[in-house]
């Protein structure tokens, strides 16, 4: 997660998702922002906190097999730059979505629930907790 260009690619990927959703004629801007936020958080939840192990064989005799991607990041060391960047990106998107939905209650509840679903597993206290 800290190799060259990964954060730029991540930002471009989220931007691409937003543009694709914006291109759908019958979606309004608040709906697009909430959808961007929810789809992105759901995808990152599956990718970071649901799937366990590695998609290829690793020479560590299966040590990583029971760990999620988030727990394997930086060999389990907490508060690294990758982890902080990752967490901040979720919060930024949440603030943007809240702003663009003009703090409408329904959108606010959906965005907040979606944010918590990806923020809580990132807490250091929940490392390795099932």
């Amino acid at each position, binding site marked *: 997660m800290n190799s060259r260009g990964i954060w730029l690619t991540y930002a471009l990927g989220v931007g691409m998702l937003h*543009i*694709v959703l*914006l*291109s*759908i*004629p019958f979606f309004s801007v608040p709906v697009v922002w909430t959808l961007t936020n929810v789809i992105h958080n759901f995808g990152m939840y599956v990718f970071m906190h649901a799937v366990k192990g590695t998609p290829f064989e690793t020479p560590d005799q299966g040590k990583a097999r029971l760990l999620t991607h988030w727990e394997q990041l930086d060999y389990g060391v907490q508060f690294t730059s990758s982890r902080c960047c990752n967490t901040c990106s979720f919060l930024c998107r949440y603030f943007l979505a809240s702003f663009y939905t003009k703090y409408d209650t329904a959108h606010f509840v959906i965005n907040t629930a979606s944010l918590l679903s990806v923020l809580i597993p990132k807490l250091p206290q929940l490392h390795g907790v099932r």
Partner: protein
Amino acid sequence: YQYLLVTSLYMLEPWEITIFNSLLITVAAMAVYTGYVFM
């Protein structure tokens, strides 16, 4: 050929390439339409 290599479609099967291209064209058409409406 460059397009196939850069998007890695080179490694996919023909029907997968068709799916990807049709999705891409659909999104591009929607983007153009929405852009036009918006302008």
